């Protein structure tokens, strides 16, 4: 375990359920993790596994029909710990944290900016509500932020509307908005999925720079293993609302001990291996969230399945930094451990 002062945010046994048509979708079903200061935690997993819901839960940006059922989200601020799940959803304390202490950037910069206001106005809004700057200072700070994000001629572009920006520039503007109040934690929900690869690299470079310069803790949600290898310090692999495996990036990518992580890594084509390489997709498909398997959620698709898998496994600490949720993880450990 890390010393407490190194940790920016800790989540313990979090459960978030969605209620629709009298049915309950256990979108997050007991998730625990920590985000370290100045480090990047990558959360990976298939679509619908609960990555984005986890992010929304931290920010209390959940839709109206969902509820945090159980668990704690503790933000370790400079002025002591804040139990986020206890705050009123859109209350004053929660709003004071949003955008100022914990900021978020979204998947699609095309729709995440309001089309009828200028970029400058939208970045300035954060500053207006979280700082005491007057309007002239806000404008100067906004221009500085845009310049820091590598937007040329920020004095002119600040008065542009989102539709006059390219996709990459909009995501930079989104990051400028998120970073405007120097948040302690930045949550990035697939920030480059909608962008092309060259822009993607630039955006990640920018986030890396922010991390080292401002000691910002980053929670990066992605399904791109290449991005994980590049940026992550810690990795959490999610499947059907649980973190099935968590650890440092080296541990998880080099020696995955959960069958799902291993299957996930096997299903990625590797550049340079040529077109004859064997890619093994994970058999079957993710279960219906309303009709889940009884025991281990991955068991029906798992090649290591045994009889014990009909019971839901507990989280087991493999070593100091690594956790796994599997009965048979020992079979996957490399020899000698």
């Amino acid at each position, binding site marked *: 375990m890390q010393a407490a002062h190194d940790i920016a945010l800790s989540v313990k046994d979090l459960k978030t359920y969605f209620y629709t048509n009298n049915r309950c979708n256990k979108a997050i079903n007991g998730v625990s993790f920590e985000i370290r200061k100045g480090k990047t935690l990558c959360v990976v997993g298939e679509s619908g596994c609960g990555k984005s819901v986890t992010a929304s839960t931290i920010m209390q*940006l959940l839709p109206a029909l969902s509820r945090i059922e159980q668990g704690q989200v503790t933000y370790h601020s400079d002025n002591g710990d804040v139990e986020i799940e206890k705050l009123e959803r859109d209350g004053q304390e929660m709003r004071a944290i949003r955008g*100022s202490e914990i900021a*978020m950037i*979204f998947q699609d910069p095309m*729709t*995440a900016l309001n*089309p009828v206001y200028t970029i400058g106005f939208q970045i300035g*809004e954060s500053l207006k509500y979280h700082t005491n700057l007057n309007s002239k200072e806000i404008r100067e700070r906004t221009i500085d932020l845009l310049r820091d994000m590598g937007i040329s001629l920020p004095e002119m572009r600040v008065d542009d509307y989102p539709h006059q920006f390219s996709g990459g520039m909009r995501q930079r503007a989104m990051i400028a908005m998120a970073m405007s109040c120097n948040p302690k934690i930045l949550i990035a929900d697939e920030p480059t999925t909608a962008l092309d690869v060259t822009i993607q690299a630039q955006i990640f470079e920018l986030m890396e720079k922010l991390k080292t310069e401002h000691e910002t803790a980053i929670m990066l949600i992605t399904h791109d293993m290449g991005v994980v290898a590049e940026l992550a310090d810690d990795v959490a692999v999610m499947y059907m609302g649980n973190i099935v495996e968590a650890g440092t990036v080296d541990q998880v990518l080099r020696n995955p001990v959960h069958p799902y992580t291993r299957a996930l890594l096997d299903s990625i084509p590797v550049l340079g291996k040529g077109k004859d390489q064997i890619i093994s997709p994970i058999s079957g498909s993710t279960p219906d969230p309303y009709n889940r398997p009884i025991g281990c959620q991955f068991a029906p698709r798992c090649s290591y399945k045994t009889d014990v898998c009909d019971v839901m496994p507990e989280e087991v600490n493999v070593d100091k930094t690594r956790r796994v949720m599997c009965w048979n993880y020992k079979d996957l450990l490399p020899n000698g451990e």
Partner: protein
Amino acid sequence: MLIYIIRRVLIFIPMLLVISFLVYGALELTPGDAVSALINPEVSGRLTEAQFNELREAYGLNKSFLARYGIWLANVFQGNFGHSLAGGVPISTIFLDRLPATLELSVVALLFSTIMGCILGTFSALKRGSIADSSLTVVGMLGVSIPEFFFGLVALLIFALNLGWLPVGGRLLPGYDSIWDRAPHIIMPAMVLSLMMTAGVMRYARSSMLDALSKEFIKTARSKGLPEWRINLMHGFRVALTPVVVLIGFRLPLLIGGSVIIEQVFQWPGIGNAFIAAVRGSDYPLVMMIALFSVFSVLLASLVIDVLTALIDPRVRLN
């Protein structure tokens, strides 16, 4: 922007020409003419065909269709809008008399319905699924589906005849023209006229607002820690406004061109009332001018919509 507006106004001219020809032709196809409408049937039974033709000649009705259209058009271009066949009054005088009444009614109805429609629609969207929202939805459906003359008659029955709170019709009594004397007259026609529009605007504002609130940028705004009122009004409502403005703009000519039915029900001395009288009397110079005026207001309204949407939504470029 200015060049765009000028260009749009110039396009009005050919459109008005074409439409005037169509309206003139349609009038030609209606049975009977001004002479037969002007003369009391008891009298006309005793007139000979020669006397009819004499009258037609006097009114210039014996020339061919195209010739009459040509003469009419030439007069209009010289600023001579002609005389009403029924009373011999210059049409420009009729317009000057009637237009203020119509505008008065329209402006009150438009303002009321726009403001109420937007407020109720936004409220409905924010309280989605609540009892208030459901009841507003029912009221909205009733407002849209029940014809306005029915509302007019019911309102007359209740407020004018049974309760006696408001006058039965008309705009003002001679000699009583202070605002306090006028107000009771306009309340009922304006309310009935706005009722339908309020319902329409409300339904539209509600769905437009729900649409805006489901957008990703609302989540962004919330993630910035903005207060709810700012998220709903500045980010939601502002975006929801564009389609609502278009709807209101399309209603504009209906109001200006004479709310024919309401003016009739309440005996409001406006353009719409004059229009009905003119059509009944085959008073074709007057029908022509009122029809052209309606067309002109439709064109003008579409121009106003374009300019307004460009002002509200920066993505719309007029060049």
